[in-house]
Structures are given as C-alpha cells and as structure tokens.
C-alpha cells in the first residue's frame, strides 16, 4: 500500500479500447457488498408493511435491528477482504454518452478502507442504537414505532449510499437522503410545533449546504468530465486540467465542497440547525446528530482531499472555521442548562476540532477523532436519553442530581462518566489521543495563524473538559434530588387508555422515575466499553511504514485522503506558501519541545484543570457557581458575556434578521408585484384596452332586440349595396 489509491486504480484501467469506465473496473467477488445497502432498504419495506397491517408490537424494531446487524456483519466481512479498493456496480442510474463526452453516475459502490472505517461505526452504532431505541420508544408501540424505525432504516440506507457511493452523485443522493431522514426523525413528534420547526430548519439549512455540493458536482463534472472518484483521482494525478474555465474552477471546487461540509457537519455559519435538532427522539440525536450523519462533512473533505490540496487557502479556511466553531460552540455549551443541548453544542465543538484537523493537514487525526467521538458522544446522548426517558422528559441539569446514588441508575451514571472523560480528553482515554493528534498538528503545520489557532484549540479543550463535567457533576453526583419533566414524547398519550405502566408516573402523588431496563443498559455498557477501547487502535502497529497512529491511520492511508496523513510522502507538510514543498523542515515547536510529545502534557493538564474546575463549581461547592454567575451578571463590563452565551450569541436572531426576514419580505413584495403590477397593470390593463374600445360601441349593445336587428340589417344591406355598386363599376359595360 505504498502507492496512492489513485495510481492503483489507474493501473487497473486498460489503455485501450476506450469503453465506458463503469464496465471496466467491476469486481464481482464481493457482489454481496450491495446488501449492506439493501438490508436497511428491506427493513424499510418491511416496516412499511408493518404500518400497513397496523402491527402493534415491537416487530419493526426487531426487523430493523436484525437487518442493521446483517449490514454490520457484512461490513466487517468486507473490511477483512483483501483486495480493496474496488468498485461494485449495482445497477445503472444516470448514464449518458454522446459524441465527445459522457456523464456516468451509476448506482455503484466504491469500497476502500476509508469507506470501511466509516461504515463499520455507522452500521455498528446503528445496530446498537436501534436496540436501545426498541426500549426507548416503547411508549409509542403501535403508533409512531414503525415510523421511527422506518426513519432509522432510511437513514442507514442513505448513509450507506453517502459513504459507499462510487461517484459524487451517489454521495449527493446519500447526502440529501440523510438530510431527509434527519428531517423525518427530528419531526418525529410532529404534534409539537418546535419539533416541526426544528425539522424544517434542519432540512433547509442543510439544503444550503447541498447547494454547495450540487454546484461542486456541476463544476467538477464541467471541469473534469466525470464524477467518479477513481477517474477524478486519476486526472488529478495527471495534472491535466488546468485550462478549463481559465483555471478558476479548480480553485472554486474546494470552497463549494466546504460549504456542503459545513452545512451537514454543523460548522459556522451553518451550525444553527444542530442544537434545535435535539427536538427529535434521543436515539436519533445519538445516532444521526452525534455519531454518524454529522461526520459526513468530514468524510466529504477527506474523500475529496486532493481537491483541497490543489488550493491550500481553502484548507486554511477549513482550519479557521473549525477552530472558531469549536470555541464558539464550547462557550455556548458552557452556559446552557438543557443536557441534550449541551451535548449538541459539544458535538458542534468537536466537529470543529475535526475540521481543524482536516485544515491542519491531518486527515488521520480528523478521522480518528470522528471514530472516537462517535462512541463517546453516542454514550453521552444515550445516557441523556435514558435520563429523559426515566424522568418524564426532564433534561434541566438544575433539576436533577445524584443519579449515581439512585437504584437502577448506576449504570447510567458511570457510563456517562466514561463518556465524559473521553470527551474531556482525560489522559489515556480515546478522546485524549484523537484530540492530541489534531492539536499537535496545529502547531506542526505552517499556516496563517495556526499557532494562535492551536492555542485557541487548547483553550477550547479546557472549556470542553469543564462543561462536560459540569453536566456529570450536576446530574450524576451530589445529593439525590429530582423533579419530573413534562413528558416530552407522550403528547398523544392522553387519548390512549391501555398504557397502564405509564399512568403511574403521571400520578399527582409522587413521581417514580423508572430506571432503564436491559436493552438500554446493555447498549450503554457496550458502547462505553467501545468508547474506552477506541484508544486501542492508536497503539496498534502500523502496517504502513513511515506513518504513526495505528489502525485508523492505516485505514485512512488506503484512501484518497492518504496525502493528508503526516509522514505520507505526498503530505505537503506546510500550507504556507513560503514553506511549501519543504516537508517537515519548518517543524513548529511548543515551548521548545516537539509538539507531539508536548501535547501529551499540555492536553492532559488542560483537561485535568477543566475537570477540577467543574468538580469545584458543580459538585463540591455548588454555591460558588451561583455566586460566580451572579457576580458576572452584576458587573456591567462583563455582563454581556454570560448573557450572550446563554442566548447562543444571538446567532439565530441575526440569521432571522439578515436572511429570513428579507427573503420573506421579498416574497411579499413579489407577491404584491405579481398581483398588482404584472397581473393587475400589465395583463388586466392590456385586457382593458379592447374593453375601452368596446365602450364606444356599447350603446349598440343595449339589449333591445330591434336595435340589434337594425344594426344587422343595416350591415347586411350595406354589404348588398357595396356588391351591387362594385358590379356596376367593375363590370360597367353590362349596365346601360
């Protein structure tokens, strides 16, 4: 695996005869890989049948879990197969050819190690979270249950298309498909206006990103004449494209792709939908809005990394946007009270880290962080879900305390602890290693202000540790105390009589939280163990020489993102123009040490300090936190800070004022214009002309029969007269 993917594929392509590419590199040995996609689709169809036959059991859940598990097994089998990368044609989709060109976008799979890496945690976590949801969604059996699981199935199918697709159009299909699944599931509680609004917002904001992707696809096709990965990589390798569109298209492509990635992965300026998306059921938040879908942006950039390397400035932008998003989201997360929202902002923040990693030339770091983040963030959301489920929708961390000491809640408390230390980057946890890989590279890589960015990122890591443990200390530690919520996901229960186990926690006298049962606990334990074990790949020996980072690095190395791995021969090393091409000659330092080893210490210390701060303010002396807050609020010069943080920096309001309101106004203006100017003035005005003309003759149309008769007779008589006169004049000889 010393050569790059692109070259390998090029070798597979015969020079002559020039036949359509789709038929050339077609692997038949792994034809069953298509079933990774088909299983969720089958599950979708079966769920649909369940809905049609009004199944009132957990059957849809088991169908979904089973088929997702099958997909997972197939993914693992595929990962063990040797001859990746390969292409598997499933069926023809859009395939056109004409003299001098072609547009081929088939329903085909492109399997390489990056695909396998992504699909393994997508399908694996998908299966586990579906299992979790089978219990979590229990109150909705017979009502929304099938709807929920069909949504999950659609999501897995679309995500599969996104990750495994062989061309950009397939990716686009998956891209919009996951967007739709997300819309479908966020709006699951469709009776609640907030949920519907959040779903709509998610879809529309994502569409803005999709626009970027669509334009990127147009531009890529117009520039390179193909949208298939292997062909694209070959052309990039050959460098034979600079003339098209006077060269600007190649520079523009990465920015458009970036827009898409920022939309899907919730980065500045398009992150606003993600926190609102928490209106969906918690398993959805865990699966889609934490672990898998939101990492699609990272995948896109990793997959298209060669395009970004052609335009280094785009990677600067990626890095800065990622870093700033991370910081911004962390500051907002610090000031929220809703557990799920805190986790949502932390997701935005961590995604920012990943983009930072991509921007500072470590696709490996980004991918690794995606991998570990998928586990520990899933754990965090799932525990939050368990809490929500048990406490009738209570998510306010001020109203929950001491879960650790309550019967039946210990597993939840400790798995949440595991998730928290991973997220906080506590030494020797998985998050520690993956985050370090990114942070260190920020100091290593030369770029505009990357040093500053590195320090900002470290500061963000400190904030992360603080707000993570703020949650844990408030909710799980401390004295036992709780208030029930308003039972979010049971809006439509009141018209149902059979739901007996449910009635008792609605009772006026005393609220009994009902602790999670087997499925939830099992899934929590499995994933949290996974979150801890996610550190292991870091220590695995590399198959590929010259790079570090263990298994994940190997996986990334087998793909088009390989040139983003530090140590890879194609790695530019530096993004600043002066240092370009000099490799590691300008290797940065931190405090005089090698960044990689320095980062172990810095990051450990920062994480620890943040953790201690959280323990101090939120466990040992909770009153100090309140005092701090009131102190901040009472000082005019600093008051704006916590207020703005609690109000999410007013970003939603700004968007409303800058984008939505003007467009809405424009809509009304256009509507009025259409009605009064185009239709009223032009169309009706034109039609009024004949009417005016008609007014001259209107006296004739008085409704009196005989005046019509006079007119008619007069007309006829005049015609007769005219004919006679004409005959007299023109045939005058005959008249005497």
């Amino acid at each position, binding site marked *: 695996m010393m050569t790059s993917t692109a070259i390998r594929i090029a070798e597979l392509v015969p020079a002559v005869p020039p036949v359509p590419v789709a038929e050339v590199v077609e692997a038949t040995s792994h034809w069953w890989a298509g079933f990774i996609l088909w299983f969720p689709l089958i599950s979708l169809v079966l769920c649909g049948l369940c809905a049609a036959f009004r199944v009132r059991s957990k059957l849809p859940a088991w169908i979904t879990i089973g088929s997702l598990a099958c997909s997972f097994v197939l993914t693992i089998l595929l990962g063990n197969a040797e001859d990746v990368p390969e292409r598997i044609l499933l069926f023809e989709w859009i395939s056109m050819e004409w003299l001098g060109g072609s547009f081929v976008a088939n329903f085909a799979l492109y399997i390489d190690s990056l695909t396998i890496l992504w699909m393994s945690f997508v399908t694996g976590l998908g299966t586990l979270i579906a299992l979790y949801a089978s219990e979590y969604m229990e109150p909705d059996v017979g009502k929304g249950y099938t709807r929920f699981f069909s949504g999950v199935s659609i999501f897995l199918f679309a995500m599969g298309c996104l990750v495994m697709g062989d061309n950009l159009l397939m990716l686009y299909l998956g891209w919009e498909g996951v967007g739709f699944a997300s819309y479908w599931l966020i709006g699951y509680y469709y009776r609640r206006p907030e949920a519907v609004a959040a779903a709509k917002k998610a879809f529309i904001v994502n569409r803005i990103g999709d626009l970027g992707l669509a334009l990127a696809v147009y531009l890529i096709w117009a520039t390179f004449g193909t949208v298939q990965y292997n062909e694209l990589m070959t052309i990039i390798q050959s460098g034979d494209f600079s003339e098209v569109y006077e060269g600007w298209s190649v520079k523009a492509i990465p920015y458009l792709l970036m827009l898409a990635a920022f939309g899907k992965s919730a980065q500045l300026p398009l992150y606003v939908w993600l926190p609102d998306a928490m209106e969906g059921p918690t398993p959805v938040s865990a699966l889609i809005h934490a672990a898998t879908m939101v990492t699609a942006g990272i995948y896109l950039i990793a997959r298209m990394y060669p395009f970004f390397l052609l335009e280094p400035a785009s990677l600067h932008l990626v890095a800065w946007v990622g870093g700033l998003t991370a910081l911004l989201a962390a500051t907002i997360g610090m000031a929220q009270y809703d557990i799920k929202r805190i986790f949502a902002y932390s997701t935005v923040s961590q995604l920012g880290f990943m983009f930072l990693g991509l921007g500072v030339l470590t696709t490996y770091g980004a991918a690794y962080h995606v991998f570990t983040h998928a586990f520990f963030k899933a754990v965090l959301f799932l525990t939050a879900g368990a809490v929500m489920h048990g406490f009738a929708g209570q998510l306010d961390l001020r109203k929950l305390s001491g879960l650790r000491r309550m019967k039946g809640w210990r597993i939840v408390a400790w798995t949440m602890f595991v998730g928290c230390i991973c997220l906080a980057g506590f030494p020797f946890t998985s998050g520690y290693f993956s985050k370090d890989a990114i942070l260190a590279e920020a100091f290593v890589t030369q770029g505009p202000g990357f040093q500053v960015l590195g320090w900002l990122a470290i500061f963000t890591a400190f904030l992360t540790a603080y707000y993570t443990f703020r949650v844990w200390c408030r909710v799980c530690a401390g004295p036992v105390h709780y208030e029930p919520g308003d039972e979010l996901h049971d809006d439509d229960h009141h018209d149902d009589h059979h739901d007996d186990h449910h009635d008792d926690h609605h009772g006026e006298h005393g609220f009994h939280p009902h602790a999670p049962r087997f499925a939830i606990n099992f899934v929590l334990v499995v994933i949290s163990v996974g979150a801890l074990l996610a550190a292991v790949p870091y220590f695995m020996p590399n198959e590929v020489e010259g790079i570090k980072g263990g298994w994940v690095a190997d996986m990334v190395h087998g793909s088009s993102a390989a040139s983003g791995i530090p140590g890879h021969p194609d790695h530019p090393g530096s993004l600043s123009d002066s240092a370009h091409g000099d490799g590691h000659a300008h290797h940065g330092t931190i405090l005089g040490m090698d960044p990689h080893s320095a980062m172990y210490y810095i990051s450990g210390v920062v994480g620890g300090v943040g953790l201690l701060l959280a323990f101090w303010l939120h466990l040992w002396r909770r009153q100090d936190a309140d005092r701090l807050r009131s102190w901040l609020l009472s000082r005019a010069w600093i008051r704006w800070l916590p207020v703005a943080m609690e109000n999410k920096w007013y970003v939603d309001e700004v968007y409303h004022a800058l984008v939505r309101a003007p467009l809405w106004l424009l809509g009304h203006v256009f509507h009025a214009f259409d009605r009064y100017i185009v239709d009223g003035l032009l169309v009706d005005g034109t039609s009024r002309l004949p009417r005016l003309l008609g007014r001259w003759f209107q006296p004739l149309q008085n*409704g*009196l029969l005989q005046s019509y008769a006079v007119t008619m007779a007069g007309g006829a008589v005049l015609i007769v007269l005219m004919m006679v006169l004409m005959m007299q004049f023109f045939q005058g000889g005959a008249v005497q």
Partner: protein
Amino acid sequence: MMLQLASTFSQLSLSQYLVLSSLLFVIGLVGFLTRRNLIVMFLCTELMFQAAAIAFVAFGRYWFDFSGQVFVIFILTVAAAEAALALALVVLLYRRRSTLNADDWMELCE
C-alpha cells in the same frame, strides 16, 4: 307557338314582379324593425318570406324552371315550422312577463 302558357313573360314583367317583391320585402323589414309587438314582428318576417316567394315564382316563370315554385314550397315549410316554434316561444315569454313588447327583454345587454 307557345303551348300551355296563356301569355308571354317578358323582362318587363319580370322587373315589375321583382320591384313588387323588393317593395314588399322592404316593407316587411321596416315593419320588423319598427313594430314592438313580438307577434307582429313575426308577421313581418312572414311578409318577407312572401316577397321572396314572389321573386322565386317570377324567376321560375321567366325561365320556365319549376325549381322556383318548389322553393316556395320549402318556404312554406320553413314558415310553418318557424311559426310553430316562434309562437311557442312567444307564448313562453308572454307567460313570464305578460307582455309582447320586445323591448322588455333586455337581459342580453352585457
């Protein structure tokens, strides 16, 4: 010699009949336009038919072509049919408004 015809029928005779016919037609037309009584209006149309019939017969006589008279038969037919339908309609209208004044039916106005 001329058999079966008691007299000659010259162009002068024809012109006399045609002038008579046209005068009758014009009188019928003027009547149609000036009388307000629906029934009298129909009578005027009958008068115009009559004028046409005279012209037909005169031309038929001029050319010794009996199609002219045949057409008069058809005119009679049409007149009869028209009388039947038109009078039925007049009765219908009269029942509604109790008047035969054509000017009372102005709904066609716009």
